[in-house]
């Protein structure tokens, strides 16, 4: 089926070419980082994780969100998702690919990555994250490729793929739970040490991921002859709305616990993020941007009449995606490190090379996504689909 990605319009090849150029530039920057060290980034002794790990965390959520299509379609027989469930699965493949790459570019000694396998350490959450992410990647490639292949031939997918699909449901929940455990089990980082972290992660994932999927579906409709259909998009819109409300509610719980208990260590990172702390406030403006976009998106989504207008829906989804991207892909990580372990402040802001490498990884993700969607769309355009 992959050969379908080799036939495309001029626009398609221009897009692929542009991505490759971005990837090339970022790769050169990565080589620089490889030789100079992570000192090239804005990371420091006090803020030892930043943009890379933030992007990783955010994208695990995007990957997990495929389950929001799989559950209704396969468990509740919600037929309308039949045509686009493949888009969710392939989005997951692309997102997990980016996750792996973000971990890789964040490592001080990337050539030793296999040490994680050579010296397996079950007490380390990172070890489990490695396992669940790899497993999830394989699951989605196998499921997506097999079901699409069957669709192309106009037959039912083979029986053996069914158990894998059911397995992928708890597996999707596991990848984001385990990723939340990376943070939620660390003593001394007040901002992260919260039992609701995994729930918050899942809520934001089930909002942000499907929001992206709506945007992608609208793009697919616009750019190709394949129409994912208005109804599944609206159904996704509902999922996004509920999930985002849950996410904002969970965030509110964090605020309550921190400020009503009045425990300084719990309040400090939130103060740093939203109001500035002891004169330091590099993140205040973007955190408020995130909050405003969240409110805007919810306002647009909560009224069905507004939501039904696809243009408004698109605006709401873009706002929400950006809002969550700032909150989870950046603020969440930095907030864990500021104030530091001595209640001192070291601020963090990504450098230019760090940003270019980050954009490069996204470009690789988009390249993978484009190729996979090209194949899926080509099959759909040929009319290949079997209920």
């Amino acid at each position: 089926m992959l050969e379908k990605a080799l036939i495309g319009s001029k626009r398609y090849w221009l897009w692929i070419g542009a991505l490759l150029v971005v990837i090339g530039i970022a790769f050169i920057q990565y080589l620089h980082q490889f030789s100079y060290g992570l000192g090239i980034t804005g990371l420091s002794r006090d803020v030892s994780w930043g943009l890379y790990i933030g992007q990783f965390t955010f994208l695990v959520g995007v990957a997990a969100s495929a389950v929001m299509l799989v559950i209704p379609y396969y468990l509740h027989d919600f037929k309308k998702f039949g045509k686009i469930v493949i888009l969710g699965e392939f989005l997951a493949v692309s997102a997990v690919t980016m996750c792996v790459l973000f971990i890789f570019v964040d490592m001080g000694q990337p050539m030793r990555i296999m040490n994680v396998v050579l010296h397996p350490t079950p007490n380390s959450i990172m070890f489990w994250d490695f396992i669940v992410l790899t497993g999830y990647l394989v699951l989605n490639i196998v499921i997506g490729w097999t079901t699409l292949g069957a669709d192309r031939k106009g037959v039912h997918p083979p029986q053996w793929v069914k158990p894998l699909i059911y397995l992928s449901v708890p597996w999707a929940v596991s990848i984001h739970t385990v990723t939340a455990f990376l943070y939620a089990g660390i003593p001394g980082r007040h901002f992260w040490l919260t039992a609701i972290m995994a729930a918050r992660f899942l809520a934001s994932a089930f909002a942000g991921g499907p929001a992206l999927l709506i945007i992608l579906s609208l793009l697919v409709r616009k750019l190709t002859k394949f129409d994912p259909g208005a109804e599944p998009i609206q159904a996704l819109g509902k999922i996004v709305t509920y999930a985002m409300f849950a996410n904002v509610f969970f965030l509110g719980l964090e605020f309550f616990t921190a400020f009503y208990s009045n425990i300084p260590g719990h309040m400090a990172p939130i103060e740093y993020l939203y109001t500035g702390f002891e004169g330091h406030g590099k993140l205040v403006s973007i955190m408020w941007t995130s909050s405003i976009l969240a409110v805007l998106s919810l306002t647009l989504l909560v009224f069905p009449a507004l939501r039904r207008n696809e243009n408004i829906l698109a605006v709401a989804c873009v706002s929400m995606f950006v809002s969550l991207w700032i909150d989870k892909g950046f603020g969440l990580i930095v907030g864990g490190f500021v104030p530091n372990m001595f209640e001192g402040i070291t601020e963090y802001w990504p450098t230019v090379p760090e940003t270019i490498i980050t954009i490069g990884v996204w470009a690789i993700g988009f390249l993978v996504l484009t190729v996979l969607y090209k194949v899926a769309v080509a099959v759909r355009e040929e009319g290949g689909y079997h209920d």
Partner: protein
Amino acid sequence: MSINRRQFLRLAGVSTVLGVGGASVLSALTGKGEAVSQTTPHFTTDPRAITGKRWGFAIDVRKLKTDEDYQKCISACHDIHNVPDFGNPKDAVKWIWKDTYEHTFPTVTEDEIMNKELKEKPFILFCNHCAQPACVRVCPTKATYKRKDGIVMQDMHRCIGCRFCMAACPFGARSFNYRDPRGKDANGRPFIRKENKEFPTRMIGVVEKCTLCYERLAVGLLPACAEASNGAIVFGDLEDPNSEVRKVIDANYTIRRKPELGTQPSLYYVIGGRE
């Protein structure tokens, strides 16, 4: 087959300090015909090694009078361990350092009214070698691990540089090599001022920390900071009730950093009691 007593004595006599091992040991042993026999190769501990069940420290900063006294402890460690000085706080690597009372004990100092002497006296900090270390729990490769004598070790050969341990350590005891420690700054000054040829450096992209002078304990020497501290840093086995460190803890009021986190730090700071 173990090393016989005579060989051990010769070994101990010939190689005095760290590193004089090598050829001198070799010559001492092969000088005699009796040593040449077939043995199954094996590893063993140096007879001079100091051993214990759980190493710990009692630190009485009141005995560090001047800035120089502090600096002596810090240099003693950083010089022999080739700890680089990158010249900026962002990339800083430190195994042992000093900081204020408020930074050392952030969770117990939410008070503006406090003992002036305490408030102004710098404390000396290094890895707590916790009994329940969070860093060890999170490491995905066992590059950091707990030895049976309580040392929280860092195997820089195995470290992949993921920095999970830095996120996990509640005491900020860990540093990452953001740059090549063998490199030079813009003015051509090497980051490691003067190399100790008997100890390795680290390489780019690995995490490092205080290793409780495991290389010195192995040949019967005390930790460098304790040796240079003029009695302010007392080292010993916390599980031995007769050890010097236990005596200091028994006789004084001591506190530990962030005990509420349950990591069980092995550094006890003397706050009050007999001088």
